[in-house]
């Protein structure tokens, strides 16, 4: 009996060993490129590390104090939050509209679904630069159409507000289709007989949407929104390729500001800014979790 038990134990142990071996490469790679740098970033945030100006010293909270006097940081934090929240909200609204369109059975639906994936698939750099060309004050098509078609003369990339709106438009254009893909999958999961029953009870279409689709989709809408918020908080390529943070610093998001500080070799300061970004992501994550719990319970 003893031998059998030992044999069986060693079998399970061997299975565990194999499992660990299979998972290990993933863990090591993540440790090397995410967990270890994370710890390092937290430590660096409290040092004045700049390779051009040794020696490196522990300076307590000075990096964070410096943010208080850095007008670009304050502008960046507020613009980042406004930008990320606004583009997520619009992406969810338009994404839902597109998802509803792509869920209607019509002859060109397959083509529509393929078209919908294209903005997701193309490089952000290409999109950013293409739109910069389209928004160009003199040679771009958007100012031209607005001027000749509607008599409007907004100054897109020269005026701070214009640049902010332009960046928001591009961000919405680029990522709404991805949101639509996720929401469409959710719509397809809503049982048909619910609609049938409600229609027999005489519900109008807006009523159907408000009392069936929306509540059932709420958990997915919240998770998608959270994902988009967190992902867009960290993205810098749109700003970098389209406006370079300008004019002035009007479109400088946190991620872009961090990149600039790294470029100026202010590694310690950049790390402390990175920590602020982590904290914002964390706070949004917790808020999202709370909302998620609530919408799930209300079902």
């Amino acid at each position, binding site marked *: 009996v003893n031998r059998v038990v030992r044999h069986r134990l060693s079998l399970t142990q061997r299975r565990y060993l194999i499992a660990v071996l299979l998972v290990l490469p993933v863990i090591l790679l993540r440790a090397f490129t995410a967990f270890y740098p994370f710890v390092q970033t937290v430590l660096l945030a409290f040092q004045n590390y700049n390779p051009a100006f040794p020696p490196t010293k522990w300076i307590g909270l000075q990096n964070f104090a410096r943010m208080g006097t850095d007008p670009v940081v304050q502008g960046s934090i507020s613009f980042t939050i406004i930008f990320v929240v606004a583009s997520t909200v619009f992406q969810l609204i338009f994404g839902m509209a597109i998802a509803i*369109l792509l869920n209607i059975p019509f002859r060109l639906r397959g083509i529509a679904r393929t078209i919908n994936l294209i903005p997701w698939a193309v490089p952000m750099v290409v999109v950013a630069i293409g739109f910069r060309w389209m928004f160009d004050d003199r040679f771009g098509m958007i100012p031209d159409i607005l001027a000749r078609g509607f008599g409007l003369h907004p100054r897109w990339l020269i005026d701070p507000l214009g640049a902010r709106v332009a960046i928001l438009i591009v961000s919405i254009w680029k990522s709404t289709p991805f949101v639509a893909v996720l929401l469409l999958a959710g719509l397809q999961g809503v049982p048909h007989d619910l609609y049938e029953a409600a229609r027999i009870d005489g519900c109008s279409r807006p009523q159907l949407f408000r009392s069936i689709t929306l509540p059932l989709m709420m958990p997915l809408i919240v998770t998608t929104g959270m994902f988009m918020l967190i992902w867009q908080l960290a993205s810098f390529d749109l700003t970098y390729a389209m406006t370079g943070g300008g004019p002035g610093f009007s479109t400088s998001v946190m991620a872009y500001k961090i990149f600039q500080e790294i470029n100026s070799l202010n590694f310690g300061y950049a790390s402390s800014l990175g920590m602020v970004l982590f904290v914002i992501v964390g706070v949004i994550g917790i808020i999202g979790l709370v909302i998620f719990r609530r919408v799930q319970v209300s079902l």
Partner: protein
Amino acid sequence: MTTSQASSRAEVSTTGVRLRQFLGLHADRILTYIAFVLFAVVVLVPFYWIFISSVTPKYELFQIPPIYFPSTLTLDNYNRMANGLPFWEYLVNSLIFAIGSSVLSVGLSGLAAYALARIRFPGSNLVFIGLILSIALPQIGLLVPMFETFKLFGLQNTHLGLILLMSSLVLPFTVWVLVSFVNQIPAEIEEAAQIDGANIAQVIVYVMLPTMRPALSTMLIINFVISWNELLYPLVFAQTRTTKTFSVGLLELATEGSTYGRPWDLMSALSIVMIIPVLILVLFGQRAIVAGLTRGALK
């Protein structure tokens, strides 16, 4: 008698009435198609603009108002792009980067996903949750320590370094999708194989690999697209001709100061070249991509 009267009245009825009847009957379908056209135009016009710019002779690009339908089309821009830039080097680098990252990430994730979903060793849940949570660590915030580590290991300006970073970035999502996929495969086949005396390596190669093939190729496509589009890592860690990718090359063209100075002809041609591979993947792999993107969100 009454029927003939009715029919004669119908003949008399004006086309306006008939149009109104038609609209009443098909209002839904007409609205759907209007929405579709609007949607398709908004999504596709930027691509039309980039494409048209890429085949317009350079002297016609800077016109006020812009020319929407150029009278002469030319491939000169592509010619200049292929000869003027280190085009072929960038192409090879981009392919190595995108293919390497997608193959490595899917390979590692496949093994890990099998272990996490099937063997369930002590702590496997913790590993899984830790991996998923690490999605929220913004890559820009981890850049400084990465920079140092890469210098230490001599990984700057190497394909290996770039591929390791990029794979790591997409690992969590890939593992997530593949775990949910493995969970849906009934365990009976594997158990039968194990009873027949197959060891874990044989089970993975002969049982899991064939059943997981659709999921693996889906993730290969998605990770290729994401890596092909990546800007930040190549921008920071690829500063030589031997490693620079298209995204970096395009951005470098775009950093010329004035609108006139910027080589829009080369930029639009390069943009089209960057769009083509992902466009092909979307056209042929639309279903697979959507299945992959939505699986993580819905499970």
